[in-house]
């Protein structure tokens, strides 16, 4: 019983190339003044890179549904932590 997915090395080299390219992009973009978009771009690229690492290097793409649920739960609870706390801090200025 062998259900393991042995990916061709080409997949790993491609992901590696994209990750390096994204690192170069995020570094270069930081030197342009885009206002609030600087943070959006930096975090957007970071999330994209993290997703690639999780899906391919960590084999999540080929893991069981149960693994998916556990990983998603971690991100979901992190979302609660960030959203509820920042929901407080970011709206404090609304009170006169």
């Amino acid at each position, binding site marked *: *019983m*062998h*259900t*393991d997915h*042995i*990916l061709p*090395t080409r997949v*790993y*080299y491609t*992901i*590696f190339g994209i*990750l*390096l390219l994204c*690192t170069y992009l*995020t*570094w270069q973009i*930081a*030197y*342009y*003044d*885009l206002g609030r978009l*600087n*943070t959006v771009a*930096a*975090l957007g*690229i*970071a999330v994209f*890179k*993290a997703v690639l*690492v*999780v899906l*391919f*290097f*960590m*084999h999540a793409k080929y*893991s*069981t549904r*149960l*693994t998916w649920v*556990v*990983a998603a*739960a*971690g*991100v979901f*609870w*992190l979302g609660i*932590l*960030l959203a509820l*706390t*920042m929901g407080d*801090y*970011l709206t404090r200025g609304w009170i006169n």
Partner: protein
Amino acid sequence: MPELAHHNPALAHQFENLAQQKEASTLGMWVFLVTEILFFGGLFLTYCVYRNSYADAFTAASRELIVWAGTTNTAVLITSSLTMALAVRAAQTGQRRLLMILLAATMALGCVFLGIKAFEYYAEYIAHHVPGAGFQFEAEHYRHAQIFFSLYFLMTGLHAVHMIIGLGIMAVMLWWSYRGIISAEYYNPIEISGLYWHFVDIVWIFLFPLLYLIGRHAH
């Protein structure tokens, strides 16, 4: 449903077969990584709160970090993730020699990362950027820049501790590979060590832009 794999010495008695054992260990590692997400998450949250309150001090302090060192270290860690991913593949295909070379390469890259990090800490120490009595910074941001540097040392320090633990895990994996404990049928230890290593890489992927890049455009 008896299986041939049943006789593999690596199969613990509570499992039906090696595939079930692998699924359990992978799931267990992911559960641990979820606790790690929330462990680092608390620090990322603290960063968000203070950066929101003291945005100008944070950009001014961020500019003092050595951006080439941070960028180089990002590339070094991504390369170590590649060698780690290839090491898992070498374990899957039973290429023991290649597995050992790739594990050693991963460790070497981890050491390069820590070396560059140590150089940065030293440079920041010399520049009086360590929070406390000896801290020096432009008067306007003196207090709040210390919050940035506190978070910088705490977050990169906790990340570095994870790197050092990772090096220890890789050393054990290298030893097990050498001893022939790892095989194409039983490579769970390499697989879940890889999960840990990649997770630590992901933490850095977020630390890099948030710490090094937030003040680069405002000159």
